[in-house]
Every structure is written in structure tokens, then in C-alpha cells.
């Protein structure tokens, strides 16, 4: 029996080593890269260069704005879809399949798909012309109309990534015993009350997972934005990419990635904290 004890450790060891090599080590490297100068000395130069850059403030602003707009939209929509699925009896599997199709679609592909809609001679302009709103094609995705690029990115992200939230929430709903809701019904709770007082509080852990995951992914939004607006709508991950690729400056690129990580960590802690107190309040 004694010889068995080491077996699980042998089994997980390769993956632990791999994750140390590809997560822990790069994390340390990124931090070091961001606070070291070209000569190897400690410096805040990279962060200063980043902060002084023309694109930095806009990148920070748009990244945060996108996250704040996209994530709540996705959660509300996914929650609605999950409840809707519970109310459907016919063709449930088909709806489930179609609604989750975007899970397999990459951010770059989603950006290109929505480019076909928002581009100058695209479907949106054709539609607007069809209903008589415009006569000539409008240019939506130029540097003069960052708000329209913003709207296009929101549309593409909601289209693509709501499915992830949806799947997490449906999986969470399946874990909630039906008895709770039935008991509430016996005591005369309306469907609305059952949703707010029973289902939603019990769904909190799944909501938390979905929110954390989606927020972190939204903070590194990149390819959708590049496909739709190039650099006309700067975002943090995009700037990291330009600084690394176009300017050949890994230090400043690393500084950007550290900023993204920092915001992600703060957001995660915030969710953990806020949603715990809510759970306590419900209990």
C-alpha cells in the first residue's frame, strides 16, 4: 500500500512542471522585463515611456470602457438565455447547439465577420439605405468615428463571447436542486420572486466564475479591435503588441502586460469580495 502514495504525484508532476515553466516563470520574467532598462539596471523608465505615450490614455480608457459595457451585457443576456432555455421544451438541444456555436469562433474571425457588416459597403449601410435613412455609404470604422468602432467591437464581442457565460450559467443552474424553487412556489412565490430570491442567490458561484473569466478576457481584447478598427481604437493588449512587434521594445510591451495583469487581479479580488458579502446577505 505504501508504494501507492506517490502515484498521484507522479501523475500530476509533468503538468505542474509544465505550468511552472509556462506560467510562473514568464510571470516573473514579465515583471523583471518591465522594471529593467536595456543595461539591466532597475528603472521605471518603461512605465514612464508607456504613460507618456500618445496612445496610452486612450488605450486604458477604451479597454476599461469596453469591459464595463461588454461584460454586464453578456451576463444579462446569458442569464436571460439560460432562463429561456428552462422554459423551452421543444427543440431544446437544437437551440443549445446553435447558441453555443460562437464558442468555437475566434476573436479574429468574429472581428472579420462584423467587419463585413460595418464596413463602408457592408450590410449595415445597405440596410440603412434600404429603409431610406442614408443615400450614400457611411464610413463607420474610421479614426474620426471611434464611437462607432466601439459599438462594432461591442457587437462582435457580445455576439462571440456571450456563449461562454451562457454555458457556465446553464451548468450552474443544473446543479441547483429543483426542490428549492418548488418549495418557494408552494409558499406562493411568483416566478419573478423565485428568480430573484431563490435561483439568483444559488447561482452566485457560477456567476462569479463567469464574471471573473469574462472580465479577464475582456481586458485583453485584441484581435476583434484590430480587425474592426486597426489602431483607431487603441486598447492595452494591442499596444503591448505594437510595442513588441513594431517598435521592438519588449520592456514597454511588458509594462503594458503588467498593467493588464494588475487590473485583472484587482477586478478578480473585487468580484470575490463583493459577491461573497452578497452571499452572506442572502443567507
Amino acid at each position: 500500500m505504501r508504494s501507492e502514495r506517490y502515484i498521484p504525484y507522479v501523475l500530476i508532476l509533468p503538468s505542474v512542471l509544465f505550468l511552472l515553466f509556462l506560467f510562473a516563470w514568464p510571470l516573473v520574467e514579465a515583471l523583471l522585463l518591465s522594471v529593467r532598462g536595456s543595461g539591466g539596471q532597475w528603472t521605471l523608465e518603461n512605465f514612464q515611456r508607456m504613460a507618456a505615450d500618445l496612445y496610452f490614455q486612450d488605450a486604458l480608457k477604451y479597454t476599461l470602457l469596453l469591459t464595463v459595457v461588454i461584460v454586464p451585457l453578456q451576463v444579462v443576456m446569458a442569464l436571460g438565455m439560460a432562463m429561456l432555455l428552462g422554459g423551452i421544451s421543444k427543440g431544446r438541444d437544437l437551440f443549445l447547439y446553435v447558441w453555443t456555436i460562437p464558442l468555437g469562433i475566434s476573436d479574429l474571425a468574429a472581428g472579420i465577420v462584423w467587419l463585413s457588416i460595418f464596413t463602408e459597403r457592408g450590410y449595415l449601410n445597405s440596410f440603412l439605405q434600404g429603409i431610406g435613412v442614408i443615400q450614400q455609404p457611411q464610413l463607420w470604422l474610421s479614426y474620426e468615428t471611434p464611437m462607432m468602432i466601439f459599438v462594432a467591437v461591442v457587437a462582435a464581442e457580445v455576439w462571440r463571447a456571450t456563449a461562454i457565460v451562457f454555458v457556465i450559467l446553464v451548468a450552474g443552474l443544473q446543479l441547483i436542486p429543483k426542490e428549492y424553487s418548488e418549495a418557494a412556489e408552494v409558499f406562493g412565490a411568483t416566478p419573478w420572486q423565485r428568480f430573484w430570491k431563490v435561483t439568483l442567490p444559488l447561482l452566485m458561484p457560477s456567476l462569479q466564475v463567469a464574471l471573473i473569466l469574462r472580465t479577464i478576457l475582456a481586458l485583453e481584447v485584441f484581435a476583434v479591435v484590430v480587425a474592426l478598427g486597426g489602431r483607431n481604437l487603441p486598447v492595452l493588449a494591442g499596444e503591448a503588441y505594437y510595442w513588441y512587434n513594431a517598435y521592438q521594445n519588449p520592456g514597454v510591451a511588458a509594462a503594458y502586460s503588467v498593467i493588464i495583469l494588475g487590473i485583472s487581479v484587482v477586478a478578480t479580488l473585487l468580484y470575490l469580495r463583493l459577491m461573497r458579502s452578497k452571499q452572506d446577505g442572502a443567507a
Partner: protein
Amino acid sequence: MNLRLLYMFLAIVLVLWVLIPIFLITTLAFSDRPSVFAWPKGLLPQQFSLETISFFFGVEGVWKAIRNSLTVAAMTLVFSVLLGAPAGYALARYRFAGADSYRLLILMTRAFPLAILAIPLAVQFINMGIYDTAFGVALVHTALALPFAVLVTSSLFLGIPKELEEAAWTLGCNRIQAFARVVLPLAIPGLAATAIFAFVISWNEVFAATLLTLRERTLPAFLLTSLNDSPLPFRFAGGFFLIVPALIFIFIIRRYLFTLWGIANR
């Protein structure tokens, strides 16, 4: 009754919301050049044509990028199953000190910004001589796919009764034989789903692939870096071609989707 109709209506609206953009890009990918630039456009395809698609495949570098993408995705698939399945098995079958910390480590890595990995790794990969290789990109993609592989295989092995394995032991199999002859055949469909999911993750990933390659671009990296100086038909055909495998794969693994994403609740 009315409520049911309303539900059905909303559900169908959502189906259209998902499908119409896919339909539109498909239409464009199979139109001729004048239709792609036509204005105003009708919803329905004007003229079926392979001009756009064949133009896309005729662009220099596209085939190479597709080949690279397939290589990277295949490597990612193999690495994540080989590294993930044993760990999943350990989590499912053994209680051991550190199991919970290991689960936490896995969950944490799933919620990690990619930018912070890709940039230092690009620098280090140059030193290690694996920059601009399929292997280097596959390593990063494996890091993204591994958490899923571990969690899915763990729930997969949990679903296979331990008694079956124990019965095999009493009948004279050693551990490895029991696993290979009893557990593995039952686990094959789930393992295949894990592998396919790893493949899709790699096929779709663009940020790390772009940073870690220069000449050996994967298809998303190739598309991304040529977006700004390529004509619309090329972009639309590329976008369509990126989506196609995803549609097929999601269809194949649809039974496992909830294990893939829902597991964290348990």
C-alpha cells in the same frame, strides 16, 4: 400558451442573431469580386462563385500558414492530452495532500492574461532557439489548453466506476493493463473531445501566435498581420475559413461543452 409562444419567438431571434452573421460571411466568401464590393448589398447571395475563395488560397503564404496552424494545433492536442490526462486521472482516483492546491493552480492559470505570458516567452524563446517555430507556439497553446484538459479528463475518469478497474486487478491485470484494457476504451470519446477542444483553442489563438512567429505564421497570425494591407475579399474568405473547422468541432463535442466550462462550479 402565449408565454410559450413568446419563449419560442425569443429563442428563434437568438438563433438568428447567431446564424445571420455567419450566413453573411459565408455569402461573401462564395461571391465574385464585384458582389463583394457591391452597394447596396442584398441579404441573399447574388452570384455563386469560387473567385473569392480561390483568390484567398492563391495568396502567397496562405497554404504555408494553414500547414503551420495544423502542425501547431496537432502538437497542442498531443501535449495537452499527454500532460492533462494523467493529472485528471490522479484527481479523479486518488485523494492526496495538495490535490486542492493543484486544482486551484489549474483554475488560476485558466484566468491569466495571455499578454503577460507571450511577451517574456517571445524574448526567452529567441535565446532558447525555439522562437518562430511551431513547437514554441504549441508550448504556449498547450499552456492555454492544459487547464481544460485536466478538468475534463478528471470528470471523465470520475464517471468511470472504480469497481471496473478493481475487478480487472483481481482478475490478474496490473495497474497499467487495467487502465489500458478497461478504463481507456471507456474514456476514448471524452479524451477525443478533450483533444478536439485543445485543437480548437490552438487553431483560434492569435495573440501569442503573432508575437512568437515571424516567418512561420499560423493562419490567424498571418491574417492578422496582413489585415491592413489586404483587400476585403481576402479578409472575408480568411474569416470564413477560420470559422469552418470551429463549426464542425463544436458540433462533434457538443455533449461535452458543459463539462468543459461548467466544471469549476463543482
